[in-house]
C-alpha cells in the first residue's frame, strides 16, 4: 500500500522501479533526463548536455564502446542514451560503428590498464566504501549485508571476485579503465557538469579503492604472498595520511617485515605498507610505532596510532581488540629531512612485545586481466569519418566535442511536437529516421503529459510541484523522506550505517527527513549543505552528496516558499541579559541541554546530539520555539525532551525559579543564548570543575574501579597518602603500574556516560610487564607462560581491607590461595614499593616461582651483552640498569636472575612450610625506581 503511493524513483531505470505518482512530474523529470531539449528546442528549458567524451579513448574499453553504441538499451536498460545506429541500413550500421569507435578512441586515448599494482586491503576498502558512503541508495548494493560482515579475504576467491549482479550500470570491469573511473568517481561533475551523479567528497585513495572494487572481475589472478605490499612516494610531505592524498607512487614492491626499509631517497619521501596481519588469539593487541618523521597505523580501516608530523624519533602506542583471523593492516610513514627511522612493534595478548613478525604478514597480489585493446593509433581516415558521423547522427548535440560540426536535421520544438506526441520518438514503433529511446508505454504517457507544460508560464508557479520534480530528478528521495515519499527503502536500510554507535537509533544512521525543512532551516544554511560546506551529522557513514548547481540551486528558495509560508517569522532583538538566563537554563540546574547537546565542539555529557553552537546559523527561531514547545509537532517525539509538565491545567517548566516557570519565556531565553552562536559562553556543568572529579587522598588510602588501558576493564586504582599509587588488574590478578604524584581525576570514568580507558595520571610511572605474577616452573629459568588470569589457571577471590584501609588482593592459582598487599614505604627522596605475599596450599608445593621484571622495555646490560637463561649467582637484590631494583626483604630463598626474551627478570622460587593442616609461604620484596 505504502509502496504503491510512494514516489519511488530510481535515478536511472524508471522502467524497473516505477515512477512518480503524478505522470506530469515524472514526465518532466524524464524529459530533462532524456535531453529532449538538446534536439527539440524548448523555451523554458535549459540544455541538458551529456557526459563529456573528451577522454573517451583513455576511459573506455573499445569493445565496450562498440557494444554500447550498437545497442545501448540492451547494455543498460533505462538509459537516456538513444540508439542512433539501428535505424541505419545494415551494412552502413557496421561502418558507422567502426568509425564512431575509432573517433572516440582517438579522444584522450589510449586505454590504459591500472598504473599501479593493488592489494587486497585496497579492494576491501573500496568494498566498504561503496556500501556505506552513499552509492547504494541509487545504484543498489553488490553484496548482501551478511556477506559484508566478513572481510573479502575470508570469502572464496571466485565469490570475492565475481562480476557484480547487474544493477543500474553495466559491469565497470568491461567498460572502464580503473584510473579513469577513479577520476570520474572523485570529480563526477568535472566530466558531466549537468549530470545527476554527485560528488561524495571522496579523496583520491577512496575513489581509487571504489574503482578497483567495481572493476574487480577484471582481476585475472590473485596470489597470496608473504610480506606486505608497499608503495613508495618521492615528494616533500609534512604528514602521512593514508594514500598520501592521491600522490603518485614512483615504485611499488614487497617487504618481508619492517626490519629494514626498502630503498629510498635521502629526504622527502613516503611509504605506504598494506597487507594482512594474522591474529592467532583474540584479545587486546598493543601496537607501537617509533618513527622519524611521522607515521600512522590502521587496522581494519580504523586508525590505531597517530604518530604523525615532523619529529625526532618518537614512539606512540595504541591498543585494539582483534578477533582471531586476518586483519587489514596499513602503515604510512614519511621523512622530510635529516635522519629517518621506522619501527613497528606489537604485543599480542599473553605475548611479549616484539617487532611485527614476518610469518604473520601477508598480502594479495592481484593481477589485472590483460584486455585486448588495440594499441596502434586508429586509422586517421577512419577517425575523420567518425568525427563527421558524430555530427551527422546528432551525437554532438548531447556530447559536445571540439571540432565536430552538427550536421543532423533539426526537429520541431517541444511545444510544437506536443500537438502530435504520438509520432516521432514517441511513436509506439518509431520511424527509422529518428533516434530510438526504447520508451515503454508508461514513459510515453508521462512524456506526453509533461510536454504541454513546457514553456507554460504557469509551470514555475507551483513551488511544491517543482520541489517534487527536483528531488525526484536528483533522486534525493533515495535517502531523504519528504511528504510521505522516499527515505531509505526497506531493502537498502542495512547499508545506512552509523560511524559511531551513539545510541541515536535510526537517527544515528539515516539521513534526516526533509519534511518542513524550509520552515526549520535558514535558506542560507540549506545552500551551504548543498554546496558540501555544512555537515551537522558527522556520525552518518552516508555522505551528503554535492550536486551540480543547476540541479539544486533553486531548492533553498523553494523549501522556504513552500514550508515556511504560514509561519510568522520571528527575529527577536538581541537581549544580553536574557541570553545569560538562557545559558543557565541550558546548564545542569536548568533544563540540562548539556546532557545530549554539544556546544561549539565541547562534547555533551551523553549522546552526540546536534551542536547548539551551530543552531543560530542553521535553525529558524520560530521553528526552535515550535520544537521546544512540542517535539511531537515536528516529528521528534522520542529523542528530544518534552520538558514541560502539566500543573493544574497549565504547562509549566520544571525549572520553577526562572521566568515564572513559563515555557514560552524560557524558550525565548534559550533562543537568545543559542543566538550567540560561536561566541556562546558554556553552560554550567558541561565543563565541570576538575575538583568534582578529583579523588583526594587524605590519611587513608582511596580506591577506584576503572577500565584501564593495557590491563583489563576490571582494574582497581589505589591511592596512598605516601603519594605513590597503584593499578591492580583484578581480572588478571596482577600489578599493572605504580606512579607518583597525582593520584586520579575521574572525568574519564565519571563524566557523562563516561567509559574512558584510564592511564596513570601522575609521574615517574613504573609499568610491570603484562604477565602473571606466579607460574609453575620445573626450573626457575624455564620460559614464563604468556597466559593471564583464567587462561593461566587464576581465579579472582576478592579483597580484604587491612587495619589501615589498604586493600589486600586475594586470588588463587590452582589450589594455592594467594594474598597480595602492595603498599608504598616512606624513604628519603621518594617512596619505595613493598610487596607482601602470603600463599597457602593444601599440599606441599615446590615448583611455584614468583617473578619481578624491570620496568617494561628496559633491557639490562646482561641482556645487551647477549647472555641468556639463568645468570650465575643467586642474590638478594637485582638491579635493572641504573634506574630500578628489586630487593628480597623477608624470603626463605634468593632471586635468580633470568634473561627471558630481551628482558631481565628476578625470579624467586617459593618455599612453603607446613603450618597446621596446610602449607604456607610468606615473602616480601621491595621495588625501588
Amino acid at each position, binding site marked *: 500500500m505504502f509502496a504503491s503511493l510512494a514516489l519511488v524513483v530510481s535515478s536511472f531505470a524508471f522502467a524497473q522501479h516505477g515512477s512518480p505518482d503524478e505522470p506530469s512530474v515524472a514526465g518532466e523529470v524524464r524529459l530533462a533526463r532524456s535531453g529532449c531539449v538538446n534536439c527539440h528546442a524548448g523555451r523554458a528549458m535549459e540544455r541538458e548536455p551529456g557526459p563529456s567524451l573528451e577522454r573517451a579513448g583513455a576511459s573506455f574499453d573499445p569493445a565496450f564502446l562498440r557494444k554500447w553504441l550498437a545497442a545501448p538499451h540492451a547494455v543498460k536498460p533505462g538509459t537516456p542514451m538513444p540508439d542512433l545506429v539501428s535505424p541505419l541500413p545494415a551494412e552502413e550500421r557496421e561502418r558507422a560503428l567502426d568509425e564512431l569507435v575509432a573517433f572516440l578512441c582517438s579522444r584522450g586515448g589510449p586505454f590504459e590498464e591500472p598504473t599501479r599494482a593493488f592489494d587486497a586491503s585496497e579492494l576491501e576498502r573500496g568494498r566498504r566504501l561503496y556500501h556505506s558512503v552513499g552509492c547504494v541508495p541509487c545504484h543498489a548494493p553488490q553484496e548482501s549485508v551478511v556477506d559484508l560482515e566478513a572481510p573479502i579475504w575470508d570469502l572464496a576467491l571466485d565469490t570475492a571476485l565475481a562480476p557484480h549482479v547487474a544493477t543500474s550500470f553495466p559491469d565497470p570491469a568491461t567498460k572502464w579503465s580503473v584510473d579513469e573511473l577513479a577520476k570520474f568517481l572523485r570529480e563526477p561533475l568535472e566530466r558531466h557538469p549537468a549530470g545527476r551523479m554527485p560528488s561524495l567528497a571522496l579523496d583520491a585513495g577512496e575513489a581509487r579503492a571504489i574503482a578497483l572494487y567495481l572493476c574487480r572481475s577484471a582481476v585475472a589472478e590473485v596470489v597470496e604472498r608473504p610480506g606486505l605490499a608497499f608503495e613508495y612516494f618521492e615528494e616533500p610531505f609534512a604528514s602521512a595520511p593514508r594514500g598520501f592524498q592521491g600522490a603518485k607512487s614512483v615504485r611499488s614492491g614487497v617487504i618481508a617485515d619492517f626490519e629494514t626499509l626498502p630503498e629510498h631517497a635521502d629526504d622527502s619521501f613516503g611509504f605506504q605498507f598494506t597487507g594482512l596481519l594474522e591474529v592467532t588469539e583474540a584479545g587486546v593487541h598493543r601496537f607501537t610505532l617509533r618513527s622519524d618523521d611521522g607515521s600512522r597505523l590502521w587496522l581494519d580501516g580504523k586508525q590505531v596510532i597517530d604518530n604523525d608530523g615532523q619529529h625526532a624519533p618518537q614512539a606512540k602506542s595504541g591498543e585494539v581488540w582483534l578477533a582471531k583471523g586476518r586483519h587489514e593492516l596499513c602503515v604510512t610513514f614519511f621523512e622530510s629531512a635529516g635522519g629517518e627511522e621506522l619501527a613497528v612493534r606489537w604485543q599480542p595478548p599473553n605475548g611479549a612485545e616484539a617487532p611485527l613478525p614476518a610469518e604473520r604478514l601477508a598480502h594479495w597480489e592481484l593481477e589485472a586481466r590483460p584486455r585486448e585493446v588495440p594499441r596502434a593509433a586508429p586509422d586517421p581516415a577512419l577517425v575523420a569519418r567518425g568525427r563527421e558521423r558524430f555530427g551527422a547522427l546528432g551525437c554532438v548535440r548531447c556530447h559536445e566535442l571540439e571540432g565536430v560540426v552538427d550536421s543532423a536535421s533539426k526537429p520541431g520544438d517541444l511545444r510544437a511536437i506536443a500537438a502530435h506526441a504520438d509520432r516521432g520518438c514517441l511513436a509506439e514503433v518509431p520511424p527509422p529516421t529518428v533516434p530510438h529511446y526504447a520508451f515503454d508505454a508508461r514513459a510515453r504517457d508521462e512524456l506526453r503529459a509533461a510536454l504541454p507544460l513546457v514553456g507554460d508560464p504557469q509551470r514555475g508557479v507551483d513551488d511544491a510541484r517543482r520541489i517534487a520534480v527536483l528531488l525526484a530528478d536528483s533522486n534525493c528521495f533515495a535517502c531523504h523522506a519528504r511528504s510521505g515519499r522516499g527515505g531509505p527503502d526497506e531493502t537498502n536500510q542495512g547499508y545506512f550505517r552509523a560511524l559511531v*554507535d551513539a545510541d541515536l*537509533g535510526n537517527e544515528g544512521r539515516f539521513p534526516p527527513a526533509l519534511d518542513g525543512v524550509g520552515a526549520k532551516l535558514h535558506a542560507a544554511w540549506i545552500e551551504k549543505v548543498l554546496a558540501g560546506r555544512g555537515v551537522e551529522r558527522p556520525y552518518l557513514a552516508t555522505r551528503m552528496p554535492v550536486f551540480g548547481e543547476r540541479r539544486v540551486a533553486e531548492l533553498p528558495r523553494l523549501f522556504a516558499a513552500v514550508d515556511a509560508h504560514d509561519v510568522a517569522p520571528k527575529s527577536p532583538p538581541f537581549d544580553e541579559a536574557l541570553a545569560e538566563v538562557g545559558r543557565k537554563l541550558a546548564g545542569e540546574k536548568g533544563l540540562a541541554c548539556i546532557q*545530549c547537546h554539544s556546544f561549539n565542539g565541547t562534547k555533551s555529557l551523553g549522546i552526540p546530539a546536534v551542536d547548539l553552537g551551530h543552531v543560530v546559523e542553521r535553525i529558524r527561531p520560530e521553528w526552535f520555539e515550535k520544537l521546544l514547545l512540542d517535539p511531537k509537532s515536528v516529528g521528534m517525539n522520542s529523542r528530544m525532551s518534552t520538558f514541560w509538565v502539566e500543573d493544574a491545567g497549565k504547562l509549566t517548566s520544571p525549572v520553577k525559579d526562572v521566568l515564572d516557570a513559563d515555557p514560552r519565556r524560557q524558550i525565548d531565553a534559550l533562543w537568545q543564548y543559542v543566538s550567540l552562536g560561536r561566541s556562546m559562553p558554556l553552560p554550567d556543568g558541561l565543563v565541570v570543575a576538575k575538583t568534582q572529579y578529583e579523588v583526594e587522598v587524605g590519611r587513608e588510602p582511596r580506591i577506584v574501579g576503572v*577500565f584501564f588501558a593495557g590491563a583489563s576493564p576490571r582494574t582497581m586504582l589505589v591511592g596512598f597518602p605516601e603519594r605513590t599509587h597503584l593499578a591492580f588488574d583484578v581480572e588478571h590478578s596482577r600489578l599493572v603500574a605504580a606512579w607518583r604524584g597525582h593520584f586520579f581525576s575521574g572525568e574519564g570514568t565519571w563524566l557523562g556516560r563516561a567509559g574512558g580507558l584510564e592511564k596513570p595520571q601522575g609521574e615517574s610511572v613504573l609499568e610491570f610487564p603484562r604477565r602473571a605474577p606466579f607460574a609453575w616452573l620445573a626450573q626457575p629459568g624455564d620460559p614464563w607462560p604468556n597466559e593471564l588470569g583464567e587462561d593461566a589457571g587464576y581465579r579472582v577471590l576478592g579483597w580484604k581491607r587491612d587495619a589501615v584501609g589498604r586493600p589486600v588482593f586475594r586470588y588463587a592459582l590452582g589450589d594455592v590461595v594467594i594474598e597480595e598487599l602492595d603498599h608504598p614505604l616512606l624513604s628519603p627522596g621518594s617512596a619505595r614499593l613493598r610487596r607482601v605475599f602470603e600463599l597457602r596450599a593444601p599440599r606441599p608445593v615446590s615448583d611455584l616461582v614468583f617473578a619481578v621484571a624491570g620496568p617494561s622495555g628496559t633491557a639490562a646490560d646482561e641482556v645487551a651483552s647477549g647472555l641468556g637463561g639463568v645468570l650465575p649467582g643467586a642474590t638478594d637484590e637485582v638491579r635493572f640498569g641504573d634506574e630500578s631494583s628489586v630487593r628480597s626483604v623477608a624470603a626463605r630463598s634468593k632471586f635468580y636472575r633470568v634473561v627471558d626474551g630481551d628482558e631481565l627478570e628476578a625470579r624467586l622460587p617459593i618455599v612453603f612450610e607446613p603450618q597446621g593442616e596446610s602449607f604456607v609461604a610468606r615473602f616480601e620484596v621491595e621495588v625501588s625506581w
Partner: protein
Amino acid sequence: MIAFVLALAQHFVAPESEAAYYRAEKLTPPAGTVLEVSGITFLEDERPIVCTRRGQVFVIDDAYGEKPRFELFCEGLQEPMGLLPHEGWIYVTQRGELSRMRDLDGDDRVDELETVCDAWPISGNYHEYNFGPVLADDGRFWITTNKPFGDEPFGRAKWRGFALAIAPDGTMQPMCAGLRSPAGIAKSPWGELFYTDNQGEWVGTGKLSVLVDGGFYGHPWGIFSCADPLWTFTKPCEPPNEVKSVDVRATCPTYELPAVWFPYDKTGRSQCGLAWDTTEGKFGPFAGQLFIGDQYQASVVRVALERVGDRWQGAVFPFRKGLSSGVIRVAFDARGELWCGETDRGWGSLGTEPWGLERLVWTGGTPFEIRTMRALADGFELEFTRAVDVELASLEASYRFESYTYLHHEGYGSDEVDRAAPRVALASVAADRRSVRLSVEGLREGYVHELHADGVRDERGHKLLHPDAYYTLNALPRASRSAR
C-alpha cells in the same frame, strides 16, 4: 447540563497536588560527596545502606533525623547497581562480578569482599551495567545485563542483554535473552521475578515483563551468545522487523510480551527500579501495588497488576512527579516510606539536580485516585479510593477510551499504532459507590487501553488527582467476570 455541573465543580474545588499526599524528604550528604544513588537497601538494624555510580557504599546513621550521617562503608566498586543483604553479607553487582561484602568488627567499614561469580566477560563499554541481584525462590541470585552502545575496547562480550542466575557456589546460568536496557529487577511478593526495560531499538516503549526461564524479550543483540552450551533453552530466533508486538510470537515462539507497557511520555520515559508496596497501608491506600521509578521524568508511577488466565497484565497510573533528579532506584523501608535513589548523569532528567536521595512520605490523607483497574470480559472495573458522585460516575460520557499497540522494530521506539476508540456503552456504580463497572465495546487483546475518566468526581466534587490510566490488555477474562 453536564457541562454546567463540570464547570461548577471546577469552579468551587481547588486542584489537589501530589505533594500534599506524598511529601519528599531530601537527604543531604556531606559536602564533596557525589551521591549518584544506584542501589538502596536496609541493614538488619533498619539503617539504610546505599551504593553510588562512583563505586562508593554508605551506611546512613540517623537517617530520619535532622542531620543524617553518611558513613563510607566501602569504595572502589565498579558501577554497582544494586545491593542485597543476605546471611550477614551485602551482595552487590558490579560491572565484572557479583560480589558480597561484610563488616566483621562492627565499625561500619567493609572488612572483606568476596567474588561470588565473574563468569560473564565485559568489553569495556560504558553501557554494560548489570542490575540486581535479586534472590529468587530457587536460591539463586538473578541479575540483568545491559547491551553495549558503541565501542567495545576489550572485544565483544557474551551475555549482554540477558537475565543471569547465579547459584551460591558461583555457577552461572543464563536464563532469559533479548533484553535491552533492563534497569530494574525485583521479586514479587508471590515469588515471580519482574524486570523493566527501556524504550529504544526493538523496544517500542518502556515495559514491565515477567522473567520466564528461556524467554526471549525481543532484542537480537545478544542472540549470538546462545550458541554457547551455557544456554540450555531453545535458541531465540531473529525477531521479525516492523510487525506489531502482539504478532512477534507468531514467528518467535519464545518471545515474551510485557505484562505492562508504559506509554511514552504519558507514564514516563525510562523505567528503572521497582518495589512492591508491602507496607500494609503505611504508605497509603495502594497496599500490594507496584511502584516504579522513572529516570527521565524524575517521577514515580504506580502499577496495579492482575493475572488473567496465565498472563500478567494491568494498569499504569501516574503517581508522583517533581522529584529532584532521575529516579533509578526505589525501596520501601520498615516505616513504610519509599526511598528514591536518583541520578541523571549521561541521560538527563526533568529534575533540577544531577543526583539525590529522597524519601516519599505519605502525609496521611487519601488522594482521590483510581485505586485499581481490572479487566472484565466486556469492559473494566474501576475501584476508587473515595466514594464517587453517583450521577457523574454513571454517565458514559465521564469516560473516554483509546487503544493502540506498538511496533516491534529496529527503529528507536515506536509510535502508538493501530489506534481505535473503544466506546463506553454502560457505566454502573456499585452500591458502596467505591467502584464502577464499565461495559466497553471494541476491546482488543494485546493492546493498551488508555482511559481518561475526566468526568468522575468524588462526593464533594473533587476531580481525580490523576484521571488517566493505561491498561495493557494481554488477555480478556472469561465471561464469569463480566459487567452486568
